[in-house]
Every structure is written in structure tokens, then in C-alpha cells.
């Protein structure tokens, strides 16, 4: 781990952390899926979480978003400790996530999928529904207008009245991101947003993620495609065997023998040696 310390971490030098985890561990019946992961996710940047299969990336995303509890360690959103808070409370602090395998709300329309997202809807209370219908209607209209804009941005507008389960795989990927965006997140955890997506759509999704950064959203994305990481991610966290192996810029990590051995190895060999 000596090389790790030598790396200049953007998180420590230039930016405050939007999300921080310290010594997170999680074991499944003795298998340590996450084993002391610790890192800062710098605010306002796109950070990639990379690592070989089985490194614990998805488990970590589940823990960070509150879908799963950790055995030990601490998690902070900004200054607030959120260790093992349930996911709805984490979400209310502005952390939204997407899922590796798209999980659309199949029986709802595409528009309704987005309309579920806004927090604090008056229409979710029985009293408001029955006694303040005008307020509920106004809020619904405002949310619907914004949702239609988001759908337009993500190219889903023509599908607004389709049931979400009728969408194609790529469209579901877009819907996942659009739905999270609709909730006005401060931090977005994207679990393999490009997995199983054709190259043209990868470009589009990459563009959307860059746009989100411009609007001030902090992004942490699990990604295997190093081309994508190189071109849109500002900062990289390498996870191996449940531990943070290294953090830094991809160019810096390429110099790191341990990282190369654990993950980048084949790619660099393929690009240079042969």
C-alpha cells in the first residue's frame, strides 16, 4: 500500500468531500465482500469506482446508498454521518442511485416513474389529498412540467405514456438516470450506467453525465470501460478485494504497479506490449 500514499489525492488537496467512507467492511457468511474500503468522493467531480469483478463495488454502492448495512466503518455525506441509515433517509439527504440491472417501476408510465421521484410531495398525505386538492394539483402540474423537460433531455419524451416495462434495455438505462435526476440529487451513484449498452448510447450517457457535472452534481460511477473512465472521469478509486487499493487520476494510476497488477494489467499489456 506504500505507493497509494505517494499519489496526490485530489480529494485531500483541492476539493472537499461530498461523500466519505472510512473503513467500511461487509461480510457475507465469512466472505469479506468489502474489507475496509475508505475514500473521499470529491465534490462536483465525476469519480469512477473501478476494480476487478468481485472487488465489492456493487456491495459498496448498496452500502453507501443505504440499501444494505455494513458490519463496521463510517459513512458521511458532507459533514453528516449517515452510517447504516435506511436508504430513504440517505436519499432525502440528496444521494440518489441507479441499479446495475435496471429496475424500472414497470406498471407505471415513463412519466409516472419520474413523478414518483420528487421529495416531500403534498399529495402523499391523506389530509392534503382530501382537504387541499388545489395545492396537490398545482404541485402535480409543476412536477409534471419538470418531468417532461427531463424526459425531453434524455430522449424519452415520445415514450412518456408507455408503461416502463415495455421499454428496451437501453431506454430503461436512460430512465434510471432520468428518474434519479428528477429527484434533484446532490450526489449520484451510478452502478455501471454503460453496461450492456451500445456504443452510440454510451456516448449519449457519457454526455449526460458530463452535463450533470456542469450543473454541480457529484457523480460516483462504477465503470469497467476504461475508455469511458479516461474521457469523462476526473478521479478514480480502485477497489480490490474489498479494499481501496489506490485513488487518483487515471494517468497517475497507470504508473502504480499494484493497480496495474490488480486491474489495468491486461489493458495496458494489450495497448503497449503487443
Amino acid at each position, binding site marked *: 500500500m506504500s505507493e497509494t500514499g505517494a499519489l496526490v489525492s485530489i480529494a485531500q488537496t483541492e476539493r472537499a468531500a461530498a461523500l466519505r467512507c472510512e473503513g467500511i467492511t461487509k461480510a457475507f457468511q465469512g466472505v469479506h465482500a468489502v474489507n475496509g474500503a475508505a475514500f473521499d468522493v470529491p465534490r462536483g467531480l465525476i469519480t469512477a469506482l473501478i476494480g476487478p469483478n468481485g472487488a465489492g463495488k456493487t456491495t459498496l454502492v448498496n452500502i453507501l446508498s*443505504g*440499501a444494505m448495512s455494513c458490519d463496521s466503518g463510517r459513512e458521511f455525506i458532507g459533514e453528516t454521518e449517515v452510517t447504516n441509515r*435506511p*436508504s*430513504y433517509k440517505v*436519499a*432525502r439527504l440528496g444521494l*440518489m*442511485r441507479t*441499479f446495475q440491472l435496471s*429496475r*424500472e*417501476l*414497470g*406498471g*407505471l408510465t415513463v*412519466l*409516472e416513474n419520474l*413523478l*414518483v*421521484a420528487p421529495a416531500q*410531495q*403534498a*399529495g*402523499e398525505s*391523506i389530509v392534503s*389529498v*382530501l382537504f387541499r386538492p388545489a395545492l*396537490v*394539483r398545482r*404541485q*402535480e*402540474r409543476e*412536477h*409534471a*412540467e419538470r418531468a*417532461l423537460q427531463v424526459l*425531453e*433531455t434524455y*430522449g424519452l419524451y*415520445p415514450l*412518456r405514456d408507455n408503461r416502463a416495462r415495455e421499454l428496451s434495455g437501453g431506454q430503461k438505462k436512460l430512465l434510471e438516470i432520468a*428518474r*434519479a435526476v428528477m*429527484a434533484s440529487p446532490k450526489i449520484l451513484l451510478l452502478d455501471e450506467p454503460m453496461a450492456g449498452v451500445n456504443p452510440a448510447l*454510451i*456516448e*449519449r450517457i*457519457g*454526455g*449526460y453525465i*458530463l*452535463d450533470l457535472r456542469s450543473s454541480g452534481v457529484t457523480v460516483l460511477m462504477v465503470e469497467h470501460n*476504461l*475508455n469511458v473512465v*479516461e*474521457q*469523462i472521469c476526473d478521479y478514480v478509486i480502485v477497489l480490490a478485494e474489498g479494499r481501496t487499493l489506490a485513488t487518483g487520476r487515471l494517468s497517475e494510476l497507470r504508473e502504480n504497479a499494484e493497480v496495474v497488477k490488480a486491474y489495468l494489467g491486461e489493458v495496458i499489456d494489450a*495497448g*503497449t506490449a503487443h
Partner: protein
Amino acid sequence: MVYYVFTLVFFLFVYFILAMGLNIQYGETGILNFAYIGFVAIGAYFTGVFSLPNSANTGQHYILGLGLPFPINLLLGGLAAMFFALLVALVTLRRLRTDYLAIVLISLSLVLYDFCNNYVAAFNGADGLYNVPEPFAKALGLTVNSFIPFFACVTAVISLLMWFVMSRLTRAPMGRTFRAIRDDHVVAAALGKNVFWMQLKSMLIGSFYAGIGGGLLIQFGGSFNPTAWLPGETFVVFAVLIVGGAGNNIGMFVGALLVETLLVHLPAFLPEIPGHPGLIEYFDLALVGIVLIVMLWFRPQGVVPERLRRTASFGVDDTDLPVAPQLPFEPAALQLGDGQ
């Protein structure tokens, strides 16, 4: 003849109410409440004991005996079912979902059944409650024959009122959040929805409907005992819901008409088959089962399926954009390919 027709009308509207209650729990929120008839019974019993005078004078054994007038007793009966639902939900909903919740609930309904059937001091045991005062009968001078049409109409009015409220609730963002939880509770939680709290709300609303339905049942017949709510009755309400179309309140009316009125109650008025007393009654339930299987096979969405909530229904302009949506960024900004 009038008696028969209005009895059918009464059961139609009561099952409309019952199905709406189960619909918000199962059709909208996905809570597989196999103890539903238990909540109906709680509503019925409590409506009864709120209405009956003190048990010292009636020769029956029961709690309370407050002698409250209709509809106060009915409302309290609904609230009693709701309170019971609160207790059940606090214990079960936090930890259990889908199949496991269903198993616990069906067990609970059996326990409740045995309790009411055997513990005489609560609701008169296996004999059940009887001689429950008929609402307004004295005040309006109603006879046995005129009470039935009168009360069928009261029930129809109540059920339409409850349909109005229910359609407001399910059309509101609350209903949408319920359906989001039904479709994927993990996603709903990731979007900041307190799944337990929303499920609790759905459970309470549905149980109130169950309680009111039960209360109307005991007021109509003047009596209620354990043979009226065998745990299998839950599945008749499920049949109403599935045939009508889960997730659609109008569908609940259609389901009640097709299953409860036409299949369950109408044949009871048919002449008996000579030499086989009670055969029709048993054949009824078998028929409900067959219809249920046929529906699930050929039309699982029900006769009146869940409605799609289109863009225009949210009060926004719904015109198609003139051009196909374009990418909001320059694809050239992102050159992917050789990479190295």
C-alpha cells in the same frame, strides 16, 4: 321478490367496499393481505357491540355494549379494524414482505378465528352476536320487509361516498407512490420513500374499508357469527379483485357484480336440486375457484384493467414535440473508440 333483489343489491355494494379496501392494499401497494376477512370480522363485531345494549340485558356475552346509534357505531367499527391493522402492521410490515407476510397474515386470521369462536366473553363465541338493533328501524317505523330495501340503499350511498374518497386517494401522488412500492420497493426506498410508512397508510385505509364493510354486514342481517367469516372468505374478496381488475376501483364494482352477486349469491335463490340439499351452495364456491383460474390464465389484468395515467391527466400541455428530441450535447465532445 323485492327482498331478493335488494339483498343482492346490498351484497353488491358491500363487496364493492370490501374489494376497494383489498385493492388499495394488494392491487395498489402489493401487500398480500390473506387475513382480510379478519379485519372485516373485527369491524362487524365492534359495530355490533357498539350498537348493542349492555350484555347484562340480552342473554349474550360480549364486551362494551354501548348502545350507540348508527352510523356512529359503524364508524367506530371501521376505526376498530383500523386499530387492529395498526397492531398487525407494526409487528409484521417492518420485517416481512410478499410471501412471508402472506403466511403470517393467514396464520393470524386463523388464530383470530379460533379466538372469536372459542372465547365467549368477547363476541359470544360460536353463537356470535344477534339481535343487533336495525338502524333507523324504530324511528322510521320500518318493518322487516321494508328495512331491507332501505338499508340496501343506505349501503349503496355509503359505498359511492367511499368510492369517491378512494378514487381521490389512488389518483393522487399517494396512490402513485403505493404503486411504485408494489412494483419495486427497493427503488421506491432509493427515491426517498419511507416504504414502511406508506405501506402502513395503505394497510390502515384498506382495513377501515374492511371494517365498514363488516359493520354493514352485521347491521343488515342483525347478526354475525364465525360461520360468516370462515378464513376462506378472504379468497372470495380476492376473486372479486382479480376478476374485476386489480388496481382499478371501477373494476372492483364490476368484480363484485360478477363474482359476489352472480356467482355467490344469485344461485342461492335457485330452487334446490331434489335430494341434494345445499349442493348449489357448495358448487358456488367451486365455480368461483374455476372462474378465478380461468381469469388468471386468460385475462390476469381483470375485466377492467388498471388504467394508464396519461400525461394530460397531470394538468400539463401534452402536445408532441415538433422534432424528435436531439442530444443536448455535442457528441464530438466525447470521442470513444481506440482509447489508448
